[in-house]
Each structure stands twice: as C-alpha cells, then as structure tokens.
C-alpha cells in the first residue's frame, strides 16, 4: 500500500515537472524555405520582392542593350520611388535585381550615390594620407562612369470592403542612357493580392 502511494506520488511529480519544463521553454523554431510563397497578409511581402526582382532581372538581361553588347555595359542604380501607402524598402528590391544581374556576368555596376561616401573616403585615404606605396594606390580620377542608370517606382491601389481587401501593385523599372538621356528599356511587374474573411 505504502509502495503504491510512493509510485503514484512519483508519477504526479514527474508529470508536474514535465509540464513545468514545457511551460518554461520558448516558441518552437524551425527553418523554412526562403522561396516559399508567403500569404500571411495582403501587404507587400517576401514573395512580392522575389517575383519582382526575378522578373525584372530576366527582362533586363534579354534587352538588346545588354545581350547585344560586346562588352558588359556599366550600370548604376538610382532611386526606386515608393509611391504606395506602405513602408517598402525599395533598396532591397534594387539590390536584389543588381545581384541577379551581376551573377549573370553580363553587366557591371558602378557604385551608386548611396555608396559614394565610402568610395570617396577610401580614395582619399589611399591617395592623400601619404601612407601607401605609390604603385599600389588606387588613383583618384580613374573611376568608371556608368553608361546606364536604372530607376523606377512602385505604386499600389488598395480597395477594401468589410469582407474583402484587394491590393494591386505595379513595379516599373527603366534603363536610361546617361549620355543621351534616351530610355533604352522599360518593363513592369503587376501583382494582385486579395484577402477575404
């Protein structure tokens, strides 16, 4: 009888310990597929970013300016304006497009305006500090100017009823010849997302 009581109390104690431990542990973490379709809300998300970047990079590489060029044209990335009501980091989109274009080997990128300060600081350090061996210095005045620039915008139209929310995004990208000012290429990517209760 006494033994059975001890057994019961041991079981209860173990069960309580397990419950306590389970209560103390954090949320369960697992890795997911970064390219999996994300449909948590109708707001701009990772799937939109990926589909825009992929579509634009593919289209840009097929243009004659790039595919028909003997050498890899030099390009710089200018602003992509966010004309939506949401906060969208447009630099992530252009960075993603730039990465895909660079990986193709068909295009070379010059530093853009946001990266200029670090470029200038580095040139100043090498050329004007007097610390570096002359033959190893990256000399001032030899930066390559970009032949083309990429700029664009993202806009949205949002319609909402009690039960339905519809968001339409349009991403527009242009390739402009810096010397002539001519628009050499333009493409757009449309995305429609609808959420119903």
């Amino acid at each position: 009888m006494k033994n059975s009581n001890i057994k019961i109390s041991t079981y209860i104690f173990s069960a309580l310990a397990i419950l306590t431990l389970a209560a103390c542990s954090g949320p369960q973490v697992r890795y997911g597929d970064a390219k999996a379709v994300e449909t948590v809300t109708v707001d701009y998300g990772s799937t939109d970013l990926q589909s825009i970047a992929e579509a634009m990079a593919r289209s840009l590489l097929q243009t004659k300016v790039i595919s028909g060029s003997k050498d890899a044209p030099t390009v710089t990335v200018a602003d992509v304006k966010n004309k939506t009501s949401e906060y969208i980091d447009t630099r992530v989109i252009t960075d993603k497009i730039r990465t895909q274009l660079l990986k193709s080997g068909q295009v070379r990128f010059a530093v853009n305006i946001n990266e200029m300060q670090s470029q200038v600081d580095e040139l100043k350090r090498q050329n004007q500090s007097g610390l570096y061996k002359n033959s190893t210095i990256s000399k001032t005045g030899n930066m390559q100017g970009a032949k083309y620039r990429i700029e664009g915008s993202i806009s949205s139209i949002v319609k909402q009823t009690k039960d339905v929310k519809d968001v339409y995004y349009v991403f527009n990208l242009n390739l402009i010849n810096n010397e002539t000012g001519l628009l050499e290429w333009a493409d757009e990517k449309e995305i429609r997302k609808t959420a119903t209760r």
Partner: protein
Amino acid sequence: MRKNHIHSAYLISLAILFLSGCGTPPLRSGQSLLPSPFAQKPIGETIKEDQKSIAVTNIFYKKEGANLKYVEEISNKYDSSASMSGSQSGIDIPSTESKGPDSKDVFSDIQSSAFPIKFTNVSDFKPSDHPSIQKDLEARLAADGIPVPPSAPALPPVGNISAKSQVTKKAGFESHPEYGQLRSFSAAIRGLLIKSGYKVVMANTAVPTVNQGDEFFQVVDRIKAGEFNGADYVMFGVLGEMSFTDNVEDIVGTKSTTQQIGLDLIVDFSLIDTKTYQVVASFLAEGNGKEIRIDGRGNGFKPSMAKLMKQASVTLAEDVAIHLADQNFVTSTISQPDIGRNYKRNPYDDDSSTLKIYTK
C-alpha cells in the same frame, strides 16, 4: 621485307616534317600571346624598312600682351613763324589678359625673346569725349607729378609774338609680341615616333631675333636653310592655347568636394615633307594634365606643376599618334589600350554544392 620497312620509315619521317611545318612556331622570348595594350602592329611599320627620318620641333608660341597707352602731344605755334612742339608719353594701363601666377612656371622653361614694343592699332582717341577716362587720365598724371595741361592753354604774348598752344591726346593699344619655344612637351612625341620605327632627327633650336615678327613660324624657310639635318619630314607644332584651371566642385551624395587643377594645351601640328613641302598631315592635338584633391581647398594644397606638365606631355603625344594614324600618314591604326574595358564574364556557377561568399 626490309625495303618495305625503309619505305615506311621514310614516309613517317616525311609526315612528321610536314606536321612540324604546319605547327605554330614557338614564341620568342618577350613575345606574348596576350594582346598588347597598344596595337601589335606599330605605327610607322610601313616605312620602317627604309627608315624615313623625321624631325620634331619644339612647340613654337607667340605670346601677345597688349597695354592701353595714352599719348599726349602739345604743340605751340607762334605767329612769328616760330613753332615748337613736344610729346609727352603718358600712362600705361595693363591689359586685362594678364596670366596667372602659375603661368610663369611653365613659361620659365622656354626660350623666348624680349623685343621692343610695337605700337600698333593706334586710333585717334579723345579722352575728353569720355569723362571717366579723362578723369582717370588726369588723376594718373597728377599722381606722376605731371602737370595736367589745359585743353587750350593760352600763352601770354611776348612782345609782338602771339602764340597758340594745342594739346592732342591719343590712346591706343601697344602690343608686346613675344616669340619662343616650349621645350618640355615634344620629348614624348619623339619617343612615340622612335617606338613606332622612325629615325628621329634632332631639330636645331630656333632662336628668335630682335624685332622678331611672324616669320618666326616660317618652317619652310627653315627647311630650305637646312635646319633639320636632312630629315624626310618635319613635324612642326605651334601652341594654340595653354590654360590653367582651378575649380572646386561638390561630390553629389557626399560631404566632400574635389579641387581640380588642370593644365590644358592645344597645339597646331603640321607634318611637312621636306622634299616637296607638302603638308602630309595637319591637326590640332590636345594635352591635359590634371591633379585632383579631395577636400583640397582650405587645406593649403599646392599642386605639382611638374606632374601636370608630364601628364600634359604624355596625353599630347597620345593624341598626336591617334591623329597621325587618322590622317593615313601611317597605314596601320593605333588601338586604344584595353585598360578599363569591361569584358563579359561567365555566369556564376550556381551549383549548391559549391561554397559561395558574397560580401557587400
């Protein structure tokens, strides 16, 4: 049987000989399969065999200075038929086209002439018609202690003699032409022609004479006088313009500025056949030296004139080479160096088994 062996050995050795004949000859020492930054076929190759000679003169120039000058003439007339006159040279007003202080550094390496002033382009000018100039003139005369003559001073009558005095004021530009040679910019051109296979003959230095005029540029007379040591061609350059620039510009997207100091020169070149005096090639070549300093203004940065001159000289020679090829003085063309050419690359290997590190 043995005959067959000998025959086949003979055939094999013949085949080997043929094959070795078709093979690429081995590279000589110093020969590379990679493309040279400049054309593999140097300019002047077509005339290399008979080694035509060329003389490259120093770069000639004429520097014009002009000063505005007033001349006053006072003449007194007496009715006893006696008359006296005298002239009083007045004020020099320096022209506005004065050179900057740095210009001395370049023109210090020259062989130039200092010539008497030539008073040219004098037009009758009455300062009294221009009150501001009249006022300025009188002020300058007063400052120099020269009494300001009245427009028609009346001399007191002496006995029976009556006198009239007349003051004439004239103004005009007096020019100071100065002829000379710039010696620091032709060496790179000579070097380039030597590399291209020419035999370069040293041209005699042209020394300006007193009262030198524009005949200083008469290269044909010089050829006739045998100043170029029998060269087949003479490359004659005259400085068109030389300018120094010093500008400060903001770098967009940064807090920095660049100070850009430049030396630019334009030279008018003529290449003359010394036998026929035919101009074989003629062009304007440009040379420029540039020194760029980030945030240079305000830090007491002083540019190196020597560096600017060297850069200008080298770029001038490169431009000369391009123009000589353009005008078919030589049949082969000069290609620009491949430096900065962006070749297309193969796409990155996207095999997931390979380690890729992309850094920002």
